[in-house]
């Protein structure tokens, strides 16, 4: 019963999301329904209209085992053998290079942000004047 209820809550948000996505597509604004559902669920959790306990088991099962749900989409790669055999070395270069570039850039951007934040904090909060 509990699992059904939890699944039902998550499915409700999914369906509302795809409904809103359809309405948005009517005004030529392509936004994925599952993302809308995710944002709505997050907001409902924040304002307490959905209690986290009422979706934990099913939600956590989905999160922990996400990979298996992508198997069918990935297997379709067998239909793209021709493209892969033509471009495999380009894909391989992009695989490694794009990761190293984005990882390095993010790492240093965040490190710099934290450094500046700390310096700003220290300027605004001068060291305490010792009481004597």
């Amino acid at each position, binding site marked *: 019963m509990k699992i059904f209820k939890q*699944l039902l809550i*998550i*499915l409700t*948000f*999914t369906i509302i999301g795809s409904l809103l996505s359809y309405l948005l597509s009517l005004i030529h604004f*392509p*936004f*994925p*329904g*599952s*993302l809308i*559902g*995710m944002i709505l*669920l997050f907001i409902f*959790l924040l304002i307490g209209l959905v209690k*986290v306990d009422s*979706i*934990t088991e099913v*939600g*956590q099962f*989905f*999160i922990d*085992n*996400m*990979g*298996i*749900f*992508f*198997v*069918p*989409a*990935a*297997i*379709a*790669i*067998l*239909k*793209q*053998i021709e*493209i892969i055999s033509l471009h495999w070395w*380009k*894909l391989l*270069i*992009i*695989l*490694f290079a*794009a990761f*190293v*570039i*984005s*990882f390095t*850039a*993010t*790492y240093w*951007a*965040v*490190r710099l*942000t*934290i450094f500046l*934040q700390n310096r700003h904090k220290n300027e605004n909060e001068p060291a305490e004047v010792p009481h004597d």
Partner: protein
Amino acid sequence: MIEAIFASPLFYLFITVGIYFLFAFLQKKFHTPIFNPLLWTIIILCGYILLIVFIDKGNIDQANINEAVDKYRSSVSILDILLAPVTVALALPLYANRHVLKQNWLPILVGSIVGVGTSIGSVVLLGHLLNLDGGITFALYPRGVTTAIAREITEILGVGEHTSITVAMVVLTGVVGALLAPPLIKLFGSKEDTTIGMALGSASHAIGTSVAFGYSSKAGAIASVSMVTNGFLTVIVAVIVRLIVAR
């Protein structure tokens, strides 16, 4: 005869769950991204489907393969259907780490913008330099984004036919990230939680997040959040690109 049993919908579901479970078990036991269950399930199932085609038809040509793939996908369509609710469930890690999100909103915002910008920028640049087909380049935009959101992005960009390439690249990016990130972090010096959490979650999504949890629970929490914010921001970029291209 062989096809009736070993290529039946029930058997397809059985080996899919079976292989996934086996590698999830190995990954947990040996704590290594090399045994990523999605990666190995894809590789082994591809081999299996080719074998079935060979036994059944005698020759492996693209038409026969396509037919077998369609049969496989309709056999396990339950997994496809559940993809949307699985994506919705991403609200959970975001909610669980809401305090981390609130306290570190500035580094998370900066990190996500830089991460998404350099990720898409490097794909566009490299795709151009390597003279890669435009459709495939589009399909690589979300290569650092968590799979659930990545496949939505290929749909937004109108290259849904290449989704399988996207999914494969996303998984491989996660594995490459898990292998390369620790030496890079060592090289760069700082093991500050927010920094490595953001870099890992942003550049190598869920697989990177599990690596981040190996450093500290705060790094893992930051990575879980950045994985979602990164995906979200990439969706926004994709929507903008689509709106511009459509005009």
